[in-house]
Each structure stands twice: as structure tokens, then as C-alpha cells.
């Protein structure tokens, strides 16, 4: 079996896993951003209610 | 007699945020209701629902005994919103003709001419609105709203941004309409202008109906009385 075939097979699987991982990472990033936003907005609301 | 407007437990959500919370309000026919409340209290949202521009998320709204998007309800309602709602590229007469046709006004051409005369735009009726002054456009917008002899008038901040002549015109138009048995609902900050006409008041506070009923006598002398009595203390 020629070597190229194996290399490309590896690329194929790598690509699939990388895309999957990249998507999971965007999910994580979004999760963080949302958590930050909720926190700061809640703080803002509390501050305003105190006044 | 059925009320001109019946609102039952109406809620309006923007996403998760309730802009209107369980509003129940009957407006008897032939009355003039001043809708009061601070910015963001939900006045515009409520008026948009009554105008058929928006559906309530929950609850029911009847306009003149019909559903708020029904032909019968819409054909008998006149409205003035934040924008003047006329086309800059069309002439005064063309604007009125368009709405006369959309509202199925009988003797459309004659009615259009009458209204152009009434708002003193008959001499410039074939000029494009783009060339009009602010005051002229405002008067045209008033003619557009009253053109089809509506039984219900919905006015969102009608006095803001009007010039003196247009305010006088609007007041006389409203007085005539009320005399003719029409119902008027207006949201306003200009309490003095509104109190001369208002027979009823409703106060919205953060999407809730804080008070509604006949206009208290105190408000004639002291327009902010209602805010102090029923609004929050801020």
C-alpha cells in the first residue's frame, strides 16, 4: 500500500477531529463570554437598585 | 355598549423581558384616555398592540368588538406614530389618495380634497412632500390619520415635535372627533395639552397598569399629581 494513501487518511481523521475540537472550543468561549455578561449585568442592576 | 377597546390580561415579551405585564383595560366608547408613564413603561408597546402592529404574547385584545388585526378593527382606527407615515416622493394628494384607497373611503377624491382644504394644503397638493416644510408635513400627517373618519384614534406622543399651528389643528380635530363619538387614546408627556381633552387617565409603570380611571380633578391644576400618587416614589 502506498504511503501517500496513509498520510491522507491521517489528514482526513485529523481534519475531522480538529473541526470538532474547534467547535467545542467556540462553545467554551461563548460560555465564558455569556457568563461574564450575566455577571456584569447583574452587578449593574444591583448597583442601580441600591441608589 | 361594548367598550371601544378591551384589553384582557395582555402580556408582551421581548425575549424573556416582559414589556407589558398582565394589562387589563377597558376604554369606553366616546372617551379620551391619556396614557401616562415614564420612558420604557410600555406605552408605545401597548399602543402598537392596539394598532395591530404587534400581537400580545398572552391575553386578548378587542378593538371595537373585533380582533386587533381584523379588517373591521383596522378600517375604523386612525393612528399617529413616532414617524409621520407619509411618503416623501409622493405629492400631498397622492399620499392621501393612497390611504383613502387602502381604507376604502367612499368618494375618495372628494374626501381627499376636503381634507387638503381643512389642513390648508390644497394649493400645494400636487407638490412632492419632500419640498414641504416641517409644519406642512405634520399637517398632512394629521389629515392622513383622520381621513377615513376613524372611530378610534391611537396617538403616540402626538404633541411632541408638532409646531404650534399643528398642535392647534390636532386639538380641534380631536375635539371634533370626540364630539362625533370617537374614542381617543394618546400617550403623552405634554400633560397640559392632554389634560384639556382627557376624560380618563391610565398610568403605566414598568409594564404594569398602576392606575386607570376617570381623570382626577386635581390633575387640571397639577398635571403631575397622578405620578406622585400612583407612580413609584422616585
Amino acid at each position, binding site marked *: 500500500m502506498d504511503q501517500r494513501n496513509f498520510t491522507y*487518511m491521517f489528514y*482526513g481523521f485529523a481534519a475531522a477531529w480538529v473541526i*470538532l475540537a474547534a467547535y467545542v472550543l467556540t462553545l467554551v468561549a461563548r460560555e465564558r463570554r455569556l457568563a461574564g455578561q450575566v455577571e456584569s449585568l447583574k452587578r449593574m442592576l444591583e448597583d442601580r437598585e441600591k441608589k | 355598549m361594548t367598550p371601544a377597546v378591551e384589553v384582557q390580561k395582555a402580556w408582551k415579551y421581548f425575549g424573556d423581558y416582559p414589556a407589558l405585564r398582565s394589562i387589563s383595560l377597558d376604554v369606553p366608547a366616546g372617551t379620551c384616555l391619556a396614557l401616562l408613564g415614564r420612558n420604557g413603561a410600555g406605552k408605545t408597546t401597548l399602543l402598537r398592540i392596539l394598532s395591530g402592529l404587534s400581537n400580545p404574547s398572552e391575553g386578548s385584545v378587542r378593538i371595537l368588538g373585533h380582533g386587533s388585526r381584523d379588517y373591521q378593527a383596522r378600517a375604523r382606527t386612525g393612528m399617529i406614530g413616532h414617524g409621520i407615515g407619509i411618503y416623501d416622493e409622493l405629492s400631498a394628494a397622492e399620499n392621501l389618495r393612497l390611504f383613502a384607497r387602502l381604507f376604502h373611503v367612499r368618494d375618495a377624491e372628494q374626501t381627499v380634497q376636503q381634507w387638503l382644504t381643512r389642513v390648508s394644503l390644497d394649493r400645494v397638493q400636487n407638490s412632492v412632500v419632500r419640498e414641504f416644510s416641517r409644519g406642512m408635513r405634520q399637517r398632512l400627517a394629521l389629515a392622513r390619520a383622520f381621513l377615513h373618519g376613524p372611530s378610534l384614534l391611537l396617538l403616540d406622543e402626538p404633541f411632541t415635535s408638532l409646531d404650534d399651528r399643528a398642535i392647534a389643528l390636532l386639538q380641534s380635530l380631536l375635539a371634533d372627533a370626540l364630539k362625533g363619538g370617537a374614542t381617543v387614546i394618546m400617550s403623552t408627556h405634554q400633560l397640559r395639552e392632554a389634560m384639556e381633552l382627557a376624560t380618563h387617565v391610565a398610568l403605566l409603570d414598568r409594564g404594569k397598569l398602576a392606575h386607570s380611571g376617570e381623570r382626577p380633578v386635581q390633575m387640571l391644576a397639577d398635571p403631575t399629581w397622578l405620578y406622585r400618587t400612583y407612580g413609584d416614589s422616585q
Partner: protein
Amino acid sequence: MREKILYVLGVAATLLLVRNLYVIFITLPDEQDQGAIYRIMFFHIPAWFVCFTAYFLAGVTSVLYLVKKQFKYDVFSVSAVEVGLAFTLIGLATGSIWARIIWGIWWTWDARLTWAFITCLLYAAYLMMRNMMDDASTRARFAAVVCTFAFTSVAITFKAIEWWRTQHPGPVLSLPGRSAGGTMDPEMEAALRLNYLALFVIAGVLIAVRMNQEKRLREVESLRRQVHAM
């Protein structure tokens, strides 16, 4: 609790995927015509099925949103589209690499490839449009309409494209009632089925995670309005 179950499921599916990799690489022999590269199919085909299913469900939930006006349908719809898009990219990437060896080219305007590409563009535009809208209710309504149109069009495009000549290899899985297929070794088929399972579970977990985020986003917007109203 729900989150824990999700994580457990996600980890289990990933482990299954890794185990499958082992089976695919070590146990299974090379295919006689294609050699080693055929193994890409174990990822490629299930990825496509995941994305078809996701788009289909997104279309159905969009219609449901318009009928019932409940946010859960909208939330599912975006999540399914987004995860579907990720799997479309997987399908395109693996397919393209496979094509490089078997057909000698990275890309060809073959019917199914073209279709996948169009679909990708369309749903990416859908997600872009959602990002530009600030009011959750308007966004949900408009997105549902767009998604309904998109799904209808994509279905028609799929059909239309069948009338063009295709050079994509035919179905290889032996489904009951489909006599033309079934040219595959049972051992391979078992591995493929397991990969289906793993990828579908992973997609499900991703969709569920994404759905939570969409709910959070609505919460953020509502808080923002509250701050604004004060």
C-alpha cells in the same frame, strides 16, 4: 444534574469514537480498491447523516416555532443548525481529502458537493443574520421564517441536483429493502454503525450544550433591557 448527564454522555461518546478508531485502524484490513484511505468513510458518512438530520429537525422546529411561538423550538433550531454546520464542514473536509486520493482532485463540482457547499453558505448566512438581531422575539420569528425557506430550498436544490450527472459513490450501507447496497463486509458495517452511534450522541450533546447557551443569551438580553429600563 442535567449538565452532568450531558458531560458523561459526551465523554462516553468520545471514548466510543476513540475505541472505534482503534478498531478501524488496527483490526480492519485495507479495502481492496481504495487501500487505507477508505477508512475516512467511517467518519464521512455518519457526519453527513448527522448534518442531514440536524437540518431536517431545524426545519421542523422552525415551523413549530411559527405555530406555537415557544422559544424552545427556536433554541433547538439554532443549535441544530450550528452543530449541523460543524458536521457539514467535517463532511466536506474528509470528503475532499478522500477525493484527492481517489479522484485525484480536491474539489469537483459534483452534484452532492455543490449541494453541500450551497447548504453551508446558506446556513452560515442564517447564523450571521441571527447575530445581527438584538431582540430575541423578532430574531426567533425571522429566523424561523428564514430557516423554513432555507430548508425548503435546500430540499428542492437536492432534488434538482439529482438531475445533473453525479460522480459520487453510491450508498454502501446495506439498509433493509435496498438491494443495490450491501457490498460491505459485515465487520466494517458494524464499525460504521458504532461510529454512527458515537457521532449522533456527540451531536446530541453539542446541541444540548448550545441550547443552554441560547437560553443564557436570552437571559443576558433580558437583563440588558432591565438595566436599560431603569
